[in-house]
């Protein structure tokens, strides 16, 4: 009797061991975490309380909320999968984009900082990646990358209207500057309307003198810091 019981116990322990190992292997499956900080697009200050949701079709969303320092962490993302990321907080533009998780066979933590644009009347958003070349009013190759984001946000937030304002690159010729900055404003407005934003939501304001908030430097500036007139987008109604 005792030997038979021992055999049964032995077999049971084998079954539990195999099951336990299977669970361990499952726990070792590669996952990816995405971490980063959420910043205010106008002030570049960290923003807390921003809800960041990663959703894969047919699955429960992975959700995180940025803390006081703007930090967020979303974990348990599947390598090689594409998620729709929604970024939202009252008082800011809702944003949404696709994110492809790196394909990896080990645990990996990748970093992705997020910018949220303020959604309040009078808020001014600087265009950090300049859409124009020096002394030119034609949108440069690649300006679409940023303007597409703007058009996307305006379509997601259909009650918002904005004013596009452009400043010149120098103070040498005010009338020529006015012509150029008007053309720059028109170029941006035309692009946004071509992307489905109603023209009535887009007003323009051109300036003939350089931006007093961002004056032209006197000393020689390093590469990457060549002065090009500022472009802003100001929320006029929400």
């Amino acid at each position, binding site marked *: 009797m005792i030997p038979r019981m021992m055999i049964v116990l032995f077999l049971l322990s084998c079954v539990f061991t195999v099951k336990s190992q299977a669970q361990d292997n499952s726990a070792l499956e590669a996952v990816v975490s995405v971490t980063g900080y959420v910043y205010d697009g106008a002030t570049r200050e960290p923003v807390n309380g921003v809800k960041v949701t990663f959703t894969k079709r047919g699955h429960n969303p992975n959700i995180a909320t940025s803390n006081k320092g703007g930090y967020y962490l979303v974990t348990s993302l599947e390598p090689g999968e594409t998620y729709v990321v929604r970024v939202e907080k009252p008082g800011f533009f809702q944003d949404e984009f696709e994110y492809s998780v790196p394909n990896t066979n080990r645990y990996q933590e990748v970093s992705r*900082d997020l910018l949220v644009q303020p959604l309040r009347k009078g808020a001014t958003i600087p265009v950090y990646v300049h859409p124009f070349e020096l002394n030119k009013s034609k949108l440069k190759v690649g300006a679409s990358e940023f303007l597409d984001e703007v058009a996307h946000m305006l379509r997601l937030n259909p009650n918002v209207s904005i004013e596009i304002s452009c400043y010149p690159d120098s103070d040498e010729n005010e009338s020529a500057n006015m012509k150029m900055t008007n053309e720059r404003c028109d170029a941006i407005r035309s692009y946004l309307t071509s992307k489905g934003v109603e023209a009535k939501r887009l007003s323009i304001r051109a300036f003939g003198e350089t931006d007093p908030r961002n004056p032209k430097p006197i000393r020689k500036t*390093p590469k*990457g810091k060549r002065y090009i007139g500022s472009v802003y987008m100001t929320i006029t109604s929400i």
Partner: protein
Amino acid sequence: MRNIFFAGVVSAALFLGTIPGQAQTRAYNMEVIGEHNDEVLGVFVNDADTQFASCSLDETIKLWSLPQGEEQATLTGHAGQVNHISFSGDDSMLASVSSDRSVRVWDVKKAEQMYALKGHTAEVMGVYFSQDGSGLIATGSFDGTVKLWDTEFQSEIKTLREHKLGVNSVAYSYDGKYIASGSDDHTVKVWSTDFDTKESLMTLRGHKAPVLIVQYSFDSKILATADQDGVIKIWSMPSGELLRTINAHTELIQDLAFAADNTTLLSSSPDHHVKMWNCETGDKVMDMDMGVEVWSADLVSNGSIVVVGCADGTVRLLTEKAASGGNNKGDEE
């Protein structure tokens, strides 16, 4: 097609008149070999000394042969000015960074873009490919971060965040252990390249202006850094001991490069000058007035050819003449 619009070779002697009575130890002939459509912001010579790349405000990268200086290809794809470039250690890939916020990796042989890496939230200013075959790329951005990327998985590995202002330049040590970064916050930080450590290993202080360029020697024992006031500092690594300060240029210094002897250091500046230094002694061994603002310069291993990228869009080759004697001290502090 090779675009030579400056057919004549100009004697370096013409440019040495800026320091009368003081002979240089190295003298060069200058030749304009071609041009971009706008300012040339970076040049980088490959490890084999057979090719170099230039990048420009015109949003393109060009590949050139060495020592011939013939234009081989133009790489397009960036949506903003291309701020810097770096070859991989085996010269098969080129990494570039741009004001379009992207890092792009190119197949050098095919002259084609392989992929773009996105994650920086502002202009990307500095890039350095690891030279040890690990396939990692370090980048620095005006968003204040340094990022390490893995070319195998085409993804970011880690973000290093201690700089208080924008990062202007990064350098990968040739032994693969460290990354140095220079920032508008006047500091240089040294980071580990392991995947887990995100705190800097040390902060080098002493610059009184934004640090625009950092560069390791080939033996990884020297780090040269330069700033917006035209000052070069030479640091012993990995200790971080300051060895020397040289008041090198009258304007900001945008680029530095070491020769393979780990002693000869090249500096270039919008003050029109390209200078060569013995960083063990502080002696200036070459000084050429290019007649135009210079954004970038690099050299082949023995320093016999210097490649120069200028603000007028020209790409120039300086070819060494027979050695001459003399000594020329920099304004050492």
